[in-house]
């Protein structure tokens, strides 16, 4: 018998099915082996790092200041905060009574929704063409340039302390209101640029095609360009989520009792920094999953596009 036989495809003479199965099994075994090696080397590597840290002569002092379980347990409830008080009234959810990390989450959610809407409006105005829209476009460009050029902490101080100090009639004086407003203004400028990149990534022929059907500039954006643009920039928008989720903490300078402020109050009273570690843990609990999701989504989207490209 020659090897390989001439009629490999014939199921009677050559048990190709069995071969395929054993091929798969072999692959699976190799996969399991790599996973085992990866797990083993990870355990050894991190084990060594942890052992090296814990055996250091400075570790006891570090642990006392930063990783003290008693201080952690003591500070935790205040840093996490209280959500049970909820809202004084329902819509439009501006009088949230909670504190600590719950307040961070509340500010993040409110700000993110407003940012996504406001930034899209800015980006769409900027994408309008023709001389008639020049003043609007110029206004948006100046706004974006100015806001992006100023440190966010400076904006928070300016609006959060400055505007309430004016005591203008009818203008809210709540630090929470101005803190969130500043985040929305600042992040909208950046997010508008993300949207703009998305709008510019849609091929010009799509706009031409939409216009040729009689759609106005706005309708062409609304129905044809923006839906494609948003899909193209979802990973970048998710990155913005992670970033905002952390920057929300900056409003602590206004005296808002969110997680970082609460942690600071604890530290001031006890000279122990474990409360900051508690706040750190909370921020990581939210931002790491979002970051992982962003990666997963980006990879899935990339694969889908490649599949379409190949078809």
């Amino acid at each position, binding site marked *: 018998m020659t090897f390989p036989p001439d009629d490999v495809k014939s199921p009677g003479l050559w048990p190709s099915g069995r071969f395929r199965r054993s091929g798969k099994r072999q692959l699976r075994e190799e996969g399991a082996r790599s996973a085992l090696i990866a797990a083993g080397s990870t355990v050894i590597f991190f084990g060594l790092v942890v052992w090296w840290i814990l055996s250091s002569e400075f570790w006891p002092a570090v642990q006392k200041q930063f990783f003290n379980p008693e201080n952690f347990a003591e500070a935790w409830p205040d840093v996490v905060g209280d959500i049970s008080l909820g809202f004084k009234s329902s819509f439009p959810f501006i009088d949230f009574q909670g504190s600590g990390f719950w307040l961070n989450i509340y500010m993040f959610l409110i700000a993110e929704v407003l940012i996504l809407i406001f930034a899209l409006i800015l980006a769409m105005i900027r994408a309008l063409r023709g001389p008639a829209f020049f003043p609007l476009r110029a206004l948006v460009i100046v706004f974006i340039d100015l806001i992006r050029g100023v440190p966010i902490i400076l904006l928070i101080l300016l609006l959060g302390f400055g505007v309430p100090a004016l005591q203008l009639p009818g203008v809210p004086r709540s630090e929470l209101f101005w803190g969130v407003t500043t985040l929305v203004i600042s992040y909208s400028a950046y997010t508008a640029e993300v949207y703009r990149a998305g709008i510019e990534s849609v091929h010009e*022929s*799509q706009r*031409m*095609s*939409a*216009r*040729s*059907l*009689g*759609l*106005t500039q706005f*309708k062409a954006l609304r*129905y*044809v360009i923006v*839906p*494609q643009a948003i*899909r193209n920039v979802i990973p970048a928008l998710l990155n913005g989520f992670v970033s905002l989720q952390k920057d929300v903490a900056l409003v602590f300078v206004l005296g808002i009792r969110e997680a970082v402020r609460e942690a600071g109050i604890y530290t001031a009273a006890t000279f122990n920094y474990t409360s900051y570690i508690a706040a750190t843990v909370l921020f990581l609990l939210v931002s790491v999953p979002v970051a992982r999701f962003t990666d997963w989504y980006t990879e899935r989207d990339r694969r889908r596009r490649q599949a*379409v490209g190949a*078809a």
Partner: protein
Amino acid sequence: MTPKVELRNVVKAFDDKVVLRDVDLEVDPHEVVCLIGSSGSGKSTLLKCVNLLVDIDDGDILLDGNVITDGSVNPNDVRQKMGIVFQAFNLFPHMTVLDNIILAPTKVHGVDQAAARDRAAELLEQFGLLDKIEEYPDRLSGGQQQRVAVVRALATRPGLMLFDEVTSALDPELVAEVLGVIKGLKEDGMTMIIATHEMGFARDVADEVCFLDSGVILEQGPPQQIFKNPQQARTRQFLQRIMDAGRL
């Protein structure tokens, strides 16, 4: 319903490159005019000028005797009276075939959703695409996509259709199905301006053929005259090259 189109001394330049120079053209209702000529001769630009996708630098374009290029007319109103189909299909990839087709009727012409659907289904059936109504464009072949693009342009019942080299991006075996659709439109009496590289098709379908060379209509006449007895040396040279390539 079917308009008359006139171009008078139309000039168009991109920066300092003149693409159309003093072009005169008349297209009567129900007439089919084919524009032939090498790439870069100005065929596509001429069509985009008629659709107001490109602003002209001098001259006038008239629709039913009214000037549409002096800035007094809303381009969207003009575009609603005509349909254009492009070389690269330009379907909207995030919408199904149906949504592509009913977008303009529902959002521009104010047709209600159900009526627009019926019209879309009717056209798709006529073009043998009814089974693709819920598909996304990237699941269709090039020929199917281009036929959907024709349906999309027809959905608003235009009186004038512009075709911009609609078979140039297709595999050779898919060309016929799209050309067949255009021939069907001629039988229905549609006024059409067709830029094409398919000489055999131009000969069959055109009432009038225009040979463009460097932005000028160098020669114009019925297809028999242009293809059998061209008067200009440039036209003869162009047709000879086409014949040498086995395309006529």
